[in-house]
């Protein structure tokens, strides 16, 4: 790991311990507090991976992955907030050379609601008032949307709360019905797919952070929780599953933390990380028994977030098709 990456990891770890750990439950219940958002901005996490000439900090990709990984371990919502702004919004704005809008995001003046339901099939219908329904980020003042025609639009507007709905995951970001007041074309579905393709390492970092956060919780709990007068860790089915999860996690982290990993390896990593995060979070909840089912214990959020993140940004069909085409040296897996 290079010096910049190591420094980044230590900084984010310290930040998460000091500013997020005790607030993680509050984030789930009430959304990311403004004070936390301000600190994220102060630290320069938003815009960190954008080139200096575009107004960013020019952070290398490994350091950026480490940052997302460490944030996701404590609060997947906070990590996702940074990820969506850095990897989707700012990259999209950057491709259109919209420096003013970029600065507004980096300074915290603007925050974007995101709607990409079209990526995974049919689009969630707009509201009768033209609102973009169920957009991610309930405290946004701008939006970015992939519409049914495959065009990306962005603009200003107002986020309205959604009644009788509690999102499955990323509750710290929340969801809203976003009512646009302006609309500007800023790309195509293909642009977004390309952005997500080069963000595989960052997406893997989110999944692995979630997995490690959950596994850490499970290790801590099974060490102290006793049943039939023995700590849970003494039982084979518990200890062996934890050992398996930890082994997979360490192997995948090895690739995540490798500076030299290319795009295809990152795509492979994303696929395996998504799968591990679902498995690890499920076992972590199960090993907590009834307590795992309550939000107070901070483990069910990893389970929810893992599945929600999968639904929002993970594209197994498209990604596997790319991988298969590399193996077969041509088009494959399309029937």
């Amino acid at each position, binding site marked *: 790991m290079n010096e910049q990456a190591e420094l980044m990891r230590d900084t984010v770890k310290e930040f998460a311990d000091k500013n997020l750990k005790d607030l993680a439950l509050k984030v789930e219940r009430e959304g990311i507090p403004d004070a936390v958002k301000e600190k994220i901005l102060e630290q320069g996490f938003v815009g960190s991976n954008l080139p200096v000439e575009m107004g960013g900090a020019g952070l290398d990709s490994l350091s950026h992955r480490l940052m997302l990984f460490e944030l996701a371990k404590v609060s997947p919502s906070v990590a996702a907030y940074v990820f969506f702004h850095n990897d989707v919004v700012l990259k999209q704005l950057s491709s259109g050379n919209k420096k003013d809008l970029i600065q507004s995001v980096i300074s915290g003046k603007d925050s974007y609601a995101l709607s990409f339901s079209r990526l995974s099939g049919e689009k969630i219908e707009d509201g009768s008032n033209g609102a973009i329904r169920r957009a991610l980020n309930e405290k946004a003042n701008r939006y970015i949307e992939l519409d049914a025609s495959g065009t990306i639009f962005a603009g200003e507007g107002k986020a309205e709360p959604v009644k009788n709905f509690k999102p499955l995951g990323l509750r710290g970001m929340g969801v809203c019905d976003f009512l646009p007041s302006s609309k500007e074309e800023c790309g195509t579905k293909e642009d977004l797919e390309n952005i997500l393709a080069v963000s595989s390492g960052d997406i893997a970092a989110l999944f692995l952070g979630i997995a490690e956060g959950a596994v850490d919780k499970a290790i801590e709990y099974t060490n102290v929780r006793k*049943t039939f007068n023995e700590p849970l860790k003494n039982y084979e089915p518990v200890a062996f599953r934890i050992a398996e999860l930890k082994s997979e996690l360490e192997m995948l982290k090895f690739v995540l933390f490798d500076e030299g990993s290319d795009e295809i390896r990152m795509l492979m990593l994303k696929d395996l990380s998504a799968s591990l995060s679902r498995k690890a979070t*499920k076992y972590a909840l199960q090993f907590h028994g*009834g307590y795992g089912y309550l939000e107070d214990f901070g483990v069910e959020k990893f389970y929810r977030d893992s599945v929600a993140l999968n*639904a929002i940004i993970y594209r197994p*069909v498209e990604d596997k098709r790319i991988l298969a085409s590399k193996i077969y040296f041509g088009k494959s897996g399309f*029937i």
Partner: protein
Amino acid sequence: MNFDLDKELEEYSKKVREFSLKEFGNDVASKYDVEEKYPDELRLKALKEGIIDFSNPWKTMIGIEEMCRVDPGMGISVTVPYFGAEVLMLHGSDYLKENYLGKVAMGEKIMGLGVTEPGGGSDVAGLKTVARKEGDKYIVNGSKMFITNGTIADFFVMLARTSPPDDPKKRHRGLSVLVVERGFKGFASNKLTGKLGVRATNTGELILNNVEVPAKNLVGEEGKGFYYIMEFFNISRIFVAAQSIGIAQGVLDRTTEYLKKLEKEGEYVGEERKFKLAEIATRVEASRLLMYKAASFLFNYNPNPILTSMAKGYASETASFAAETAMEITGQIGLNSEIERFFRDSKIMEIWEGTSEVEKIVISRMMLKGDKSE
């Protein structure tokens, strides 16, 4: 061999489905889920309209499945006011049946089962709640955790230690079942909120501080409580299998509809997603057949705990498999539909009434002793 339900059960199943669709569609279920509110009016309506029918256990099982297929949180809420009733039916005195069970059956009271404790979980015999006999009453001290109907039940069928075990290795001895009313002095409860799923159901923590329970509220014989509760779990696990199959079937219905719609609109579906649908469908059928087999033993007064644990364990894992897979298939559409609620509701199936691990312990332990699943 005939796998069809008889006419009476077919008609009952249809009636329950119609009731459920009419009374708790997505909007209603969402509201109770978000507000974490118990639908008491629905309990009374279900009773009035004959949806709750104790005349035939097959009806109970099939009714639970049908209700959970429409919505797990609401479906369980309708059927759970009677939770623990079998303990009183099988071992309660006439006094207990008349004064407690009868009133539950009439809809006048709600009951609950007080077994799990804060440090207990799967280890039922390790409970710490103590009931000390003093004259014609028991003085109960302790606490209970994750109790369904915890803050709404009028009374609880509660397991407590009435004497120390004669052998430290035989902790299941010396436990008894008592009927403890909410109104007894020294009884307190707190609602547990922030559950992942089944949020329309009420869950609480009970605190028992020198609660005086009349000796006539002892269920059956003193010292036999552990056996009564294990016997009860052998019954209730079938009903959890039914909840689980209802969830899995509900998820399957919705996922099938989603893929049909995509195909109709000319959207790409792909073999991978179709294979996943096929896996869910196959597991739902297998779970249901296993449940029917276990139920046929149980309802013919010949319970087979191996089969019951297999049915509960497999069906509960099928419920969460189905819901997780459905989330993968439906992506963001699923995230914004009932499927996400089914996903959250499904996980508790692998935890309550014996975790998946406990079911595997029961199965393997009995098989190694020479018992069989036939």
